[in-house]
Each structure stands twice: as C-alpha cells, then as structure tokens.
C-alpha cells in the first residue's frame, strides 16, 4: 500500500466519522447525511482499489482517469448546490409567511388588549 493511499483512506474515514458525529448530535438531517456518506464511501473504495479508477476511466472513454474524478466531483457538487438553492428558496418563503403571520397576530392581540382595557 502506498503512502498516498494511506493518507486518502485516513482522510476519508475521518470525514465519515465527522459526518456520523453530526448526525448523532442531531445537527445534520439524515437526507443530507446520505449524500455525504455515499460520496465518502466512493472515496474510500477508490483509495483501496487503485485500478478501479483506470477501469472506470476506460469505461467512460476518458483519456486521463484523474479527469474523471474532477468531472464527477464537480458535477456532483453542482447538483448539490442547486439542491441547496431550492432549499434556501423554500425556507425563505416559509420564513416570510411566518413573519407575516406573527405581525398579523400581534396586531390582533394589541387590538384585543386595547378593546379590553377600554371595557374594564
């Protein structure tokens, strides 16, 4: 086993460890954890199985196998970012609706209180 393999494996495993820790603490939703665990898994497999990359590169007809890693990784990141953008948009809309609901309720409460004060 070469040195770079050991570095890659240790790196991937500690990343996996930190993802699992976040889930345990309840800080990361499982749906997101799934993506991260899956990508870490791919990294670990490729760290052990060096010929795997060559094989995959050959399969996709890539000239330099390393480029496959970059292309695949960038593509995955883009998709994930798009997913996050839609999530943020949805959260923003929900946030707005909640803020408006709070304002309208507060106005109603204030109104009721003044009406009550007038009567008492």
């Amino acid at each position, binding site marked *: 086993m070469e040195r770079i393999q050991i570095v890659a494996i240790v790196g991937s495993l500690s990343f996996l460890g930190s993802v699992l820790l976040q889930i345990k603490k309840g800080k990361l939703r499982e749906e997101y954890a799934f993506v991260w665990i899956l990508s870490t898994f791919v990294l670990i497999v490729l760290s052990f199985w060096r010929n795997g990359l060559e094989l995959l590169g050959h399969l996709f007809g890539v000239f330099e196998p390393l480029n496959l890693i970059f292309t695949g990784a960038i593509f995955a990141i883009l998709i994930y970012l798009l997913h996050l953008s839609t999530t943020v948009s949805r959260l923003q809309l929900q946030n707005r609706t909640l803020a408006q609901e709070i304002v*309208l309720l507060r*106005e109603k409460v204030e109104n009721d209180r003044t009406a009550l004060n007038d009567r008492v």
Partner: protein
Amino acid sequence: MVKSENHLSLQIQAKKCKWREFMGQLVKIAVVIPAYNEEASIASVVDAINSLSTENLRLTPVVVNDCSRDTTGELIARLKCVPLHLPINLGIGGAVQTGVKFAFNNGFDLAIQIDADGQHPPQYIPTLVSELEKNHWDVAIGSRFIDRQGFQSTLARRSGIRFLQWLLKLITGRSVTDPTSGMRLMNRKAMKVIYDFYPDEYPEPEAIILYYRRGLTFGEVPVRMNERQGGESSIQGLRGCYYMFKVTIAIIFTYLRK
C-alpha cells in the same frame, strides 16, 4: 383545507355582491404603505391620507414597517394608522403582501399601495376608486406616463421602462404605460391573488403578468407623481442591471407558470 378554501371563496362571493351596491355606500379602503427607513416622509404621507377620509370613503393607513433601522417604528406607533412591525426585513414585496393580508383578513373593500417616500400623491386615491368602479376593474394602476405630467424619472429608467412596456405588450397584448408604478388599487378578488403569491423584490411589472394569468381586469389612471421627498431609490447603477434581469426572467416565468 379544501373546506376552508371553499369558505374563503364564499366570502369573496358575498363581498362581490356587496360590490355592486357600492355607489353611495361606505367604502373601506386600506392604504398599505410599505416603509423601510422612511422617518423623513412617513408622517406627512399618513397625515395626507387621513385628511382625505370622507363619509363615503374611509381611508385607513396601514404602515408596514419593514424592520427599519431608523425611528420609523416609534414614529408610526404614535401616528393615526395601523402600525405593522415586521420582525425581519422582507423587502418591498413581502411588506406590501403583509399589508394586503391585513386588509383582506379585516374585511376591507379595497386596498391601495402608496409609497412612503411621498412619490404617490394620496389625493388621487378617490379618482382611482371611481375609475375602478366605473370600469369594473379588479386593479387600477396610477400611471405617470399617460398625461406625461409631473415627475418623469431619468433617461436610463425611462428606457428600461420602455423595454418592459414592450415585453408586457408582447405577452399580454395590452399596453401598460407605467409598468413599474407601485400605486395600485385592488378589490378583494385582486387582494386574494396577492395574498397567495407576491414576489419579494421589484414586484410591480411581474404583478401585471400575475393579474393577466389570474384573469384579473386592470387599467391605468393618469396620476401626477412627485420626486421622492426622502430616502434613496433602491435601483441605481449595477442594481439597475440586476433589476432588468430579475424582472425580465420573472415576467417570462410568471407567464409560463400554471
């Protein structure tokens, strides 16, 4: 859920019948004023609106304080108006929608949006109301460019506006002379549309497509607008480019959306 929506549409129906008997009856109008850092001009705008109330036309200023960092919040608490203090900054569209939701929930017959910076002279409100009634519109838009009087904006803005006019005409087949005008009077049917969906930022041109898609009737009324009394326009320089980009995309996609 379905049940409550039915209930809501019944309410609209009931209001619609009432609408026919408007002539000579008391009309309750919520004047929605979105305010972000408008301490310089808000008081005079609110006072001007209050002074316009008559026996048949009761105007209620609804000031939506969009989390201002100046003293707008404390100021409007002391004015004769309904103060709505947003806990977070929602942008102009979110603020207007808040006011419209208030108007709809509290049974107002009409709601009109007026800028807090003094650009929209409130004395045109009765004109907009009578035009809306006369033409049976759902929305009446105050336009600077029919009579071409009063403040006419800068050259860059006018060319942007010309492009929007062309785009809207292409899509709706109708000419709208002042698509960026924020001075809009709406009935309950239109309020319900805004209640359900309204853009966050730069909502005006997009809203016209929204009216068109939801089958609302609308028209324009000549209005002489002023230059802003206080505050700064949010659309300057690079923001102008972003504005055109955002609005164009939004217009096209609002049209394509079901």
